[in-house]
């Protein structure tokens, strides 16, 4: 699942907002509700069974940042849904 798909799954109304959001745009500034981002963090931690690092939590503010976290914690054997998804070549996170 991509960052975009996950945000729409959490809140269908996000689809309209995400239509005009670029990979590095700030999601809160674009109009994504903070509750969606909190739910997103929880879902990633639940589904990937990890505790995200502080720097990873901080990075859940852009589609590319979210995608990078998803890629990093994707269960082994699961292929990315979209090889062209932004964030695949993100540098390691720093805090």
């Amino acid at each position: 699942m991509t960052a975009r798909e996950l945000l729409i799954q959490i809140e269908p109304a996000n689809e309209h907002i995400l239509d005009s959001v670029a990979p590095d745009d700030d999601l809160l500034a674009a109009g994504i509700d903070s509750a969606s981002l909190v739910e997103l963090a929880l879902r990633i931690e639940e589904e990937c069974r990890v505790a995200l690092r502080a720097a990873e939590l901080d990075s859940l503010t852009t589609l590319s940042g979210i995608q990078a976290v998803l890629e990093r914690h994707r269960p082994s054997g699961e292929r990315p849904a979209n090889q062209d998804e932004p964030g695949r070549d993100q540098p390691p996170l720093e805090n």
Partner: protein
Amino acid sequence: VSGALSMGSGCPVGYMNDTPALLRAKFAEALQRVRFVSSLDDDVLIDRAEAKRLLRCDDATIADLVAQGLRIDQRTEAFSYCDIMNVGLYSGTARSVPELAERFITRFSAEPPLTWTQRRRWRLAVEGRCTRAGGCAGGQWALAATPAQAYRRDPSDIGSRVDTFRTTFEAETSGYQMEVQAAPIRRLHSECLERFRSGAWQYQYLPLGLRDDPVAADRLGVMNCFSVAGWLSERLRMLGIETRVRHGLLLAFMGMEHAWVDARDADGVFKPLDPVIAVLAARSAVPASSFASFTCGSRFNRVLASRANTGQIVTHACDGRKQTVTLLVYARPADRRSG
């Protein structure tokens, strides 16, 4: 932390399959853990929808909690904000908003200590909501105490809606590591940790009146960062040690208001004491071994100090009086990766 509910190691495993019945049981158990020490009249009241949102539960769970003794204002069918936050905090469901806030806020304590003091740039959104019963009547909003290190505030965001205040700004923070020399200061910091550890104090959300009355909060055995800062300040002053109670924002994925105290050490330098964040990290994260001692004299880079040392950071008046404001803080890095 003994005497308080341990919420695990910070790794959220094992609650995904909680059944609705188990979730209801967990919330019901929380009713026994929370210390209900103030009257409903002293607190902000919230409606059922907001209570469900904060606990992330359904109507049946709320009804179950009421049946088991959760306080409800019979006239308005409203709940105490602090009651709901505290029930969530001690539910052990790992899903309620207060649990998530604590978990996400303290996550940095598990990172290498070097990262606690690095210079950081942040983009912040601060949102205040009027809590007047019956709805906001419209009125004035103000960022009463602009954080000292904040810059590039965008005034066009202020007061865009009458019932909500929202402002965005960027800020820079950094920390430092220092050790407290004066034994009485170190002893009182340790005493705070021990009071939480023993259960003499329980960390809870407190109504404004109680959070600003450390003597009463101490007597009732319920403390938060504001009351601990006040308590420490009073005890240190009794020993002839100069102090400054500090208010500000704790910067994280889900940030919040925060308070701590600066004490003038034997070398003449004011050094921060922040035992509460050590207590919260111990039960909601896997803090580095040096984190608790770091909170005695050192400052981490996720606090943004306010210029004012009292009162709320965002203030609002409507219906002819000052109203209590709930504050939401969202902080994200303003660096190359976040654009």
